[in-house]
C-alpha cells in the first residue's frame, strides 16, 4: 500500500477546525455559565493549559516517530496496561463524536428545521464523514485545509458585522464573582481543547516531525485567538444574564447580522457548522477506525468505518433523552472528565515515558 503522508500544517489545521467550530457552537454556553462576564479572563488563562496540551501531543509524537497513540501507549506501559489505556482513549473519542453529532443534529432540529427528524441530519453527516474517511487521511486533510481557509474569513467577517450590536460595558464589573468562577471557566475551556488530543492518532503520518512542538503550540495559540470573538461577542451583545440561558448563543449572534436589506443570515451559521462538524466527525471517526484496527492488528481500517459510524448514531441517542440532558452533562461532568482523559492521562504517559529510558518495541512489531 502507498504510505500516506500529510504535512504538519495540514494535520494541525484538522485539529484547529475540529475543536474550534464545534466548540463555538456547543461549549460557549458552558463557559459563560461558569465564568460569566469574566469569560475573557478565563480564556486568557486557558492559554497555559492549551500550550501544555500542544506540548504533550507533539512531544509524544516526536518521541515515538511514526507511531500512533495506540501503538506507543503499549510501548510505554507494556502490552496489557497500554491496551487498556488505548481503549480508554478510544472510548473518549467515541463518546466525543456521539456528543458532537447529537449536538449537531439538535442544532438543526431546534434552530432551523424543527419538523425534520434528527436522524436525517445524523445520517447525512455520517455519509459525508464515512466517504471522506474511507478515501484516506490525505483526502481528509486536503479537504479540511481548503475548508478552513474558507471558514476563517467568514468567521472574522461575522465578528465584524456583529460589531454594531456590541456593548462592551457588559463586561463590567470585572471579576465580580471572584477567582473561583474564572478558574472553573478556564477548566471548561481546557476541556474543549482536550479533544485535540485526537491528533496523536494522525501525527504519526506527518511527513516531517521537525519543529513539531513549535507548530503545535502555535496552533493552540491560534485556536485560543479564534475563541476570543465568539466568547466576548456573545456577552457584549446579549449581556451575561441573557447569554447564560441560550443553547446556541453564537448562532443567535449570526442571526442578528444585517447587511443592508439582507438579514437573518442563518445560512452563514449553517455553513460554518456543517463544515466544522464534518471536520471534527471525520477526524474522530478516522482516529477511531485506525485505533481499533491497530488494537486488533488489522491492516485495513476501512472495514471498521461504517460499523463504528452506525454504532455512534445509536449511542448518541442513548446519551440523553433531550438536549438539556446533554447540556447538563457538558456543564457538570465534561470539564472534569475531558480534562482527565485528554490532558492528565497523556501527561502521565509522557512522564512515564521519560522515566523508562530504554523502551523495547513489542514483539512482532516492525517499524
Amino acid at each position, binding site marked *: 500500500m502507498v504510505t500516506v503522508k500529510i504535512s504538519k500544517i495540514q494535520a494541525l489545521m484538522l485539529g484547529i477546525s475540529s475543536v474550534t467550530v464545534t466548540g463555538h457552537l456547543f461549549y460557549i454556553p458552558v463557559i459563560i455559565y461558569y465564568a460569566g462576564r469574566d469569560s475573557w479572563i478565563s480564556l486568557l488563562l486557558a492559554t497555559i493549559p492549551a500550550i501544555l496540551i500542544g506540548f504533550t501531543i507533539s512531544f509524544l509524537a516526536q518521541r515515538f516517530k511514526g507511531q500512533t497513540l495506540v501503538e506507543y501507549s503499549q510501548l510505554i506501559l507494556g502490552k496489557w496496561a497500554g491496551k487498556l489505556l488505548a481503549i480508554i482513549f478510544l472510548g473518549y473519542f467515541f463518546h466525543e463524536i456521539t456528543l458532537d453529532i447529537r449536538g449537531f443534529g439538535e442544532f438543526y432540529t431546534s434552530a432551523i*428545521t424543527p419538523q425534520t427528524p434528527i436522524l436525517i441530519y445524523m445520517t447525512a453527516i455520517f455519509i*459525508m464523514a464515512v466517504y471522506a474517511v474511507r478515501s484516506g487521511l490525505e*483526502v481528509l486533510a486536503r479537504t479540511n485545509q*481548503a*475548508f478552513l481557509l474558507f471558514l476563517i474569513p467568514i468567521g472574522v467577517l461575522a465578528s465584524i458585522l456583529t460589531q454594531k450590536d456590541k456593548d462592551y460595558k457588559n463586561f463590567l464589573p470585572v471579576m465580580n464573582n471572584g477567582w473561583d468562577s474564572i478558574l472553573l471557566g478556564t477548566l471548561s475551556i481546557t476541556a474543549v481543547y482536550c479533544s485535540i488530543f485526537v491528533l496523536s492518532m494522525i501525527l504519526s503520518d506527518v511527513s516531517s516531525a521537525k519543529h513539531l512542538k513549535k507548530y503545535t503550540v502555535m496552533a493552540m495559540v491560534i485556536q485560543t485567538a479564534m475563541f476570543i470573538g465568539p466568547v466576548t461577542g456573545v456577552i457584549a451583545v446579549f449581556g451575561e444574564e441573557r447569554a447564560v440561558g441560550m443553547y446556541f448563543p453564537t448562532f443567535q449572534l449570526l442571526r442578528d447580522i444585517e447587511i443592508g*436589506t439582507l438579514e437573518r443570515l*442563518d445560512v452563514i451559521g*449553517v*455553513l460554518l457548522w456543517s463544515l466544522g462538524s464534518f471536520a471534527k466527525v471525520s477526524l474522530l471517526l478516522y482516529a477511531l477506525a485506525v485505533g481499533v484496527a491497530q488494537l486488533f492488528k488489522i491492516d485495513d481500517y476501512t472495514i471498521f468505518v461504517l460499523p463504528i459510524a452506525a454504532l455512534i448514531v445509536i449511542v448518541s441517542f442513548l446519551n440523553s433523552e433531550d438536549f438539556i440532558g446533554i447540556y447538563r452533562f457538558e456543564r457538570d461532568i465534561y470539564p472534569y472528565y475531558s480534562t482527565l482523559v485528554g490532558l492528565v492521562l497523556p501527561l502521565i504517559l509522557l512522564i512515564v515515558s521519560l522515566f523508562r529510558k530504554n523502551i523495547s518495541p513489542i514483539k512482532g512489531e516492525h517499524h
Partner: protein
Amino acid sequence: MFKKNRKLTKQAPVKQEAATEKLAYDLQTNTDEIQEQFGKKSDLAIRFFEEMKMAVVYIESLVDNETIQTHVIEELNNQKAKLGATPLKEISLSVKKVIQIETSQQLKEQLLQGYTVILKDGERIAIAAETSGGDKRPVSESTNESVVRGPRDAFNESLMTNIGLIRKRIHTEKLKIYKCKIGTLSKTAVAILYIEGAAKDENFQEVKSRIEKIEIDGILESLYVEEMIEDPNGYTPFPTIFNSERPDRITAGLLEGRIAILVDGTPAALLVPATIGLFLTSNEDYYQRYDFGSFMKMLRAFAYLLSFVLPGFYVSILTYHQEMIPTPLLIALTGQREGVPYGVAVEIVLMELTFEILREASLRLPKTIGAAVSIVGGLVLGQAAVEAGLVGQATVIVVSFTAICAFTTPSYNLAIAARILRFAVIFLCAILGIFGLFFCLIVLFTHLNKLRSFGSPFLSPFVPYHKKSWMDFFFRHPWWSMETRPNEIAGSNQRRMPEESNNPHMRRRK
C-alpha cells in the same frame, strides 16, 4: 464491473496466427491467396504485367490514384525492357517510401495502410510503395472552441496532419513522438507526444504502458482511449483527461510538461495529466491582456460554481429559508407563484428537464432547423409556461441564468458533470434545505480531492497548495512573470525562462 475490465486489459495480447508464413515463389499462388482473403468482388485491384511476370496489388479505396498511375504503373512500364532481369529489391520508384515484405501477414497489413504491393514471379519477397491517399478534410477553423484573437486552425481527422500542426509550432527535436497501433481490427494509429525534459519521464512511461494494455477491436474516437486509460478513481462524473481540437491548446499543454495523445480519425486530442485549472481555462486567456485574462478566469470559475448550485440554492431558499429574502422581494416572488400548483422543487426540475430536452433537440437537428427549435423553446414555451401558470417567472429566470452560466465553461465534458449533478443538488436541497446544498458541496469537494489524473491530484494547485502554480490558476499573471512550469506536472526542466537575464525588458520582473 469497471475493475474487472481494467484487470482484463492487463493480460498479454493474443499472438497473431500465421504471422510468419512466408510468401510463395509462384506469382499466381500469391495473388490467388490475396484475392481469396479479400474476396473476389471487393475493392482490391490486381494488375498483371505479363511480359515482366509482375503484379501490382492495391486497395482502390485507400490509395491515391494519381500516385499509382504516374509513379508506379507508368514507371514500371517505362522500364519494361530491363525489368524482367532486375530483382525486385533493385527497382527504383519515385514514391515517398518503399519497404520490403516477406510474409503474407505483412503484405496484408501494408495493403490495408494504403500501400501498393509489387510482386514478381520467382521471388519470395515483395516490395510495397507508399501510395496512401483518399479524401481528407482540410485544416479548417475550429467550430467548437472559437476565439476572438489567436490562431484559428483546428485538428482534422488525419493523424499525420495533426502531428504536423504541432511540429510546426515547436521546432525542436526534443518533441518526442511515440507511435503505436491499437485495436485488433481497426489498427488505429495512436501517437503519444511529449517534450523531453519538460514532461516527467515516468508520466510518459505510465501513459505508454496504459495505452499498450488496451485491448479492443476498434477505436473510433479518442474517448475510447480516454475511458480506458483513466486512473482507477471509481465512479466519477468529472473528466480527468483533457481534450481539445485546437493545436495551440495542445502545444501549450506540451510546453507545460503535459503529455498529448493523438488518435487517428478524430480531431479531439487528449492531454494528461489534467487538473481542474486546465478545464476552466480557455486558450484566449493567454492571447488577451493578462488583467482581462485573470478576470475572465475568475468569472468562469464563479459561473461554473453557479451552474452547479444556483437552482438548488433557489429551491432551498424559497422552500426553507424565506426569512433570508428581503421582504419586498419575497412578496413579489410569492405573488408570481400564486397560481402555480407545484412546489418550487418540482417547478425547477420541470424546467431543467425541458431545457435539457430542448438543448439536445437543437443539437441533433440540422443547423437550419436548430434556430427554429430555440425560438419555439425559448420564447414560446417559456413565455407560455409562465402565462399558463405552470411555473413562476423567477424559476424561468433561474433556469435560464444557470444555463447561461453553464455555457461559459470552456470544456464541454466538465460542463456535463455540472449538468448531471445539478439534479442531485436540487433533490437534496428540496429535502434538507440549505444544509442539503452544503452537504452536496462537501461530498463533491471530498470527491474532487480524491480524484487523480495520472498521479497528479485533480485539484492541485488549490489543494495540495503550490504557491508558484497559482500564477496560472485563478489569475493569469503576465507572461514575463510566469517563469516556471506547473511543478506538480513538469519534469526535470522546470523553468520556462532562464534564471538570470540581462535583457532589460525581462528584468522588470525582478
